[in-house]
């Protein structure tokens, strides 16, 4: 294996994981932008989305069969939609039960944090009880093989599916936030919730939309993640922390920043894990985070944020 091939392979691997981090990081960053609140239960939204997609695709694919062609594409899409819906439902429930009552009563920020941790513990323990504590694989929805070779690096069907889906979702969110009326109200609430409210923006609706949007992304991301790494009740924790890191790295509250942070984190992990030792992957990733924050405390693309809702 030549070194150019090596570099190309590691880049592709890094971008693949990075794209997943980015998809989850968007959920953190959107909610933070609007509420200036870290939604620590977001990792559980990701996990529940993965199970949603998993059970949906298991219901359609008979054991041992490997579909092909259009059926595969349809099944992947179906799994993604099911995952996204499960994620959105979880995020909505979370907002409804863990955050809204606190916001109504004007609770201090710390109360949200405790509420989030409580919701997270509740969700993953319940999942462990209901879905079992073993890892569960997503059934094969397509024949995984090498599709194309870029500079000697082989790209598998699975990587391609992940990359395309993640890219499509990231573009869609970027367009939604930057170019639609709904996005405009999200941005308005992020800049100054009180003013936005006075101007006629339904702040409560914007908050729900933000949570649901984050849930859709995390749910679909969870399904993509489970296709490669299997689903388990504790699966949310590490990717959740990584995505949070990516959001901070890119500048929390900034949508494009989250994408940049996710991809960068993926690349650093991929190269770091190869050059040093796979076990040092996290050490290297977090060293980079600290270094970036020393130079740019608000993250790569971070800017001042407005008044929270």
């Amino acid at each position, binding site marked *: 294996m030549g070194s150019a091939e090596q570099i190309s392979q590691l880049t592709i*691997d890094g971008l693949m994981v990075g794209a997943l981090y980015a998809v989850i990081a968007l959920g953190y960053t959107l909610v933070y932008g609007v509420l200036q609140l870290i939604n620590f239960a977001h990792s559980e939204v990701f996990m529940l989305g993965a199970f949603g997609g998993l059970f949906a695709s298991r219901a359609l694919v008979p054991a041992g069969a490997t579909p092909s062609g259009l059926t595969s594409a349809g099944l992947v899409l179906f799994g993604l939609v099911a995952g996204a819906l499960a994620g959105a439902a979880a995020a909505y429930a979370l907002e409804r039960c863990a955050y809204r009552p606190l916001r109504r009563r004007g609770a201090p920020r710390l109360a949200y944090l405790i509420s989030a941790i409580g919701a997270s513990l509740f969700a993953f323990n319940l999942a462990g009880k209901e879905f079992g*504590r073993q890892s569960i*694989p997503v059934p094969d929805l397509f024949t*995984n093989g090498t599709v194309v070779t870029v500079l000697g690096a*082989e790209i598998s069907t699975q990587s391609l599916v992940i990359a395309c889906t993640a890219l499509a979702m990231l573009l869609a969110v970027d367009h939604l936030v930057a170019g639609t009326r709904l996005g405009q109200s999200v941005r308005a609430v992020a800049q100054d919730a009180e003013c936005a409210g006075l101007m006629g923006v339904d702040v409560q609706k914007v908050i729900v939309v933000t949570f649901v949007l984050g849930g859709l992304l995390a749910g679909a991301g969870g399904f993509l993640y489970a296709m490669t790494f299997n689903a388990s009740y504790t699966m949310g924790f590490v990717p959740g922390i990584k995505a949070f890191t990516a959001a901070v790295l890119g*500048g929390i509250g900034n949508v494009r920043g989250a994408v940049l942070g996710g991809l960068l984190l993926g690349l650093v992990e991929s190269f770091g894990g190869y050059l040093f030792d796979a076990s040092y992957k996290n050490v290297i990733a977090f060293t980079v985070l600290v270094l970036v924050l020393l130079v740019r405390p608000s993250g790569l693309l971070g800017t001042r944020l407005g008044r929270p809702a």
Partner: protein
Amino acid sequence: MTGSPRTPRPRTRRAGVLRPVAGVVAGLAMVGAALTACGGGDSNEAGTKEFLIGFQGPLSGENQQLGINAYNGVLTAVDLANRTGGLPFTLRIVASDDQGVPEQGPTAAQKLIDNPDVVAVVGPVFSAPTKASEPLYSQTGLLSVSPSATAPALTDLGFTSFYRVIAPDTVQGAGAAEYLAKVVKAKRVYSLDDRSEYGTGLSGAVERGLKQAGVAYTHDGINPTKDYTSQATKIMADGADAVYYSGYYSDFALLTKALRSKGYDGAILSGDGSNDDQYIRQAGAANAEGTLITCPCSDANTDPAATGFVSEYKKVNSGLKPGTYSGEAYDATNAIISVLRKLGTGASRESVLADFGSVDFPGVTKRIRFERNGDVQGSTVYVYQVKDGQRVVLGPVSSLVKP
């Protein structure tokens, strides 16, 4: 306020600390469930002496299946002895969950030690918790017989109440190396371990065997993770034509997936920690196809000498087939029962421990006789292969290497 990330960072860590605590809580709940489950089997007739046999192993967590396999083996032996053994006492099991991790080992052991009716323990199941728990067992003089802790060093650490009915990984490693050299005909082997007590012991043994056989190898270790992508790239770059993973099935499954998706075409092998059908399930049958597993254990389901055990096991465990370590746990329990039978109702922790070294009886997995250090005498290493989504026994290494 700017989006300063300094405030949230400690919060991240706090969430991280809380999670293991929740795991413990969940684990305790599981033990509770297990206790109630086996509590139903005891006959509490008035006046009948009752002895408790402890069980320590992972009953929750990522690798719980191996613990459950062993527990069901213990259950089978105890149930059979109570029903048909003609014993002057009744037996009951007390299970203690260590989740297969060393941190939980001492707590799980202490729970059994503190119960004065426990006369002997089957377990611990995994090597790392064994190393962490044995000092406590030795101190108290409570016999513990592991069905499956294969880390070689365990019998050299001066533990005075530790026995195991499975051969140490020195035996398995030598067998695996011989198989790699003569049957797989590997030119270069990538020996990867999970950095656990068990993994490093096995990888060291495999590498010593490879060195003797003149096969080149690369040693590497990786803590269990979900993402084996960069590890797979590293293996591909190394040019090894065989990978031997020393670790447990849930990690080996993900490693296999990563290697297959990179198109690795060399041989993929692992040891007894991966010898469970969960491996095939989690890796996906297509990915697992053709991979090889070594184990110093035969498969009770296909061994004609073990048919009695298999049918008894199925009867006790509502139709389940014995899994990896079920037979060993059954043998370990029967070894303890044979000593209790001899000692009768007057048996104590001291007398059970004192008499255990001279146990000699035909078990379902092997003849159970011990060396002075607590290792079981002799043992054959078997090779398994995944064929059509099923684990099948190819045979013992000694006969497979014959031309």
